[in-house]
């Protein structure tokens, strides 16, 4: 990635969009300190490199890919791990942490999953449990890699509603997302990446247009704005002759 420079303000929700392999996850990993970038990432006035793991976990929580697997652990135990960043007790979680986790699971409509083995959940359910774990960290900055992927429409909207509500509490939310319409409806700013570079950055209405879709995704589409969100309609539905020839 090159020449990446942007500022996210407190209480803002930033949606990072771009084609597969454009660098969305890499950017999030840099902010989460999973990858050590050459430049500097300033978090609350200090370089991210200056923080210890413990300090950073109190400010930034994240849900990144490469999920853990291969162990049997109850879902609520995974969410409870989020409270580790402010652990006062050595061995057992505090009652108030357990109550917080209960509230988060209820809020996200996944309380019924709490006693299930994490490994037996569907991808969408695992994703929601890991989002709940990030929320249990109670940090001011939340990084989520494709939080709504694998979810049905109802749950996509529920997750985005929760994230939006968090920004109203003054928390900063940075997500990578493929659903452009959804991103534009909820995010204050959109950052468009392609091949490791920033193509556009700004308010959704200023950023998302037909030229951008052509440049970044290589598609011809009509973009219509309805309220806060765009509707993207592919211009032509071309029948791929190669497919017909190959698979007939």
């Amino acid at each position, binding site marked *: 990635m090159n020449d990446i420079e942007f500022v996210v303000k407190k209480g803002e929700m930033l949606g990072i969009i771009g084609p597969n392999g454009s660098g969305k996850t890499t950017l999030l990993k840099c902010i989460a300190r999973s990858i050590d970038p050459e430049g500097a990432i300033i978090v609350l006035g200090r370089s991210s490199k200056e923080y*210890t793991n413990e300090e950073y976990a109190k400010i930034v929580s994240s849900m990144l890919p490469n999920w853990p697997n291969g162990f049997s652990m109850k879902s609520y135990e995974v969410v409870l791990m989020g409270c580790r960043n402010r652990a006062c007790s050595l061995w057992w979680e505090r009652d108030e942490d357990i109550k917080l986790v209960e509230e988060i699971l209820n809020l996200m409509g996944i309380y019924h999953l709490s006693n299930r083995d994490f490994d037996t959940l569907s991808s969408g359910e695992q994703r929601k449990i890991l989002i709940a774990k990030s929320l249990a960290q109670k940090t001011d900055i939340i990084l989520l890699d494709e939080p709504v992927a694998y979810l049905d429409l109802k749950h996509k909207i529920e997750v985005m509603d929760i994230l939006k509500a968090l920004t109203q509490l003054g928390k900063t939310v940075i997500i990578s997302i493929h659903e452009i319409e959804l991103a534009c409806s909820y995010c204050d700013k959109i950052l468009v990446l392609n091949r490791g570079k920033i193509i556009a950055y700004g308010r959704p209405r200023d950023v998302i247009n037909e030229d951008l879709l052509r440049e970044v995704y290589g598609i011809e589409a009509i973009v219509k704005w309805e309220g806060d969100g765009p509707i993207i309609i592919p211009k032509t539905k071309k029948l791929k002759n190669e497919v017909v020839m190959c698979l007939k």
Partner: protein
Amino acid sequence: MLGVIKRRKIRLIVYISFLFILLFTAFLSSLMIGAYPLSPIEVINALISPSNDAGSIIVNNYRVPRALLAIVTGFSLGMAGGVIQSLTRNPLADPYITGMSSGAALGAAIAFIAPLNIFMIPFFAFAGGLSSILLTMFLARKSRAGPIGFILAGIAVGTIFSAVLMFILVIAAERAHGILYWIYGSFSTSNWNKFQVILPIVIPSFIFLLINARDLNILLLGEEHASQLGINAKRLWNLMLLVSSLSVSTCVAFSGIIGFIGLVAPHMVRLIVSSDNRFVLPLAGLTGAFLLLVSDNIVKSPFNPIGEIPVGVITSMMGAPFFIYLLLRRGERYHI
């Protein structure tokens, strides 16, 4: 959920109490069992008022340190097995399979033959055990074959260390006879001296491992996730490996290589109770202690027709079928 967690805490206390009772029973019977069988009254008398008669000397000078050594060694193997399985996220790992025991035995044998002071033996055993586990980890990472790579590397490293050990034993043929017996695991030469050397090393190790049981759960999520939850994952990983190999190596130095306790004990806890390391570590320790003490009781029982055999033979005979059971019954989807 609060209720569920409270019930789990109560269950932990119940299981610990139950295992303590079992262990205490096995301990008392171990004081009675031996070439010179004693009645419960004789044992209690010997414990309460030590005297110079044969029964009292046997109990206080030989059987008590022997039973305590078996308990500490079993606890150490069981707990270290649970730790290593979690650190490597590999259900098949244990101090024996990862080559740690062979390395420790080699180190201890060198110290034995040299011959060095008894207090130097644990350090040599530790150096041997640590170098073998580090070599195993290095090879496993290089192979990029995941859990299978770890097991194969462990077997290879264990075999190399065992071969070097055998070579040394052949060269030092005159001194080797006693050592050979010891290598296959035996408590027959236990005494208070050995116990005094082991205790100051293993007790702090146990405390350290138990304190970090909760963070060990988080390490199961992987280094990246653990770091994001505020843990210095690399340092904790290294420290836990170091401490568990220290406690295992010290025990191996005095009791020889005892297989399968480190594998079987943590799995029994996971199958019956929970995979949470706050349960696995203490309960696997107690289960390991109980299994090893019972095995030692079988070994020294006067009804044993062939006389005293290495305790490692009994633990392997109990452990290997369990290993096969794990492989066949739960191999498809078995997790830490």
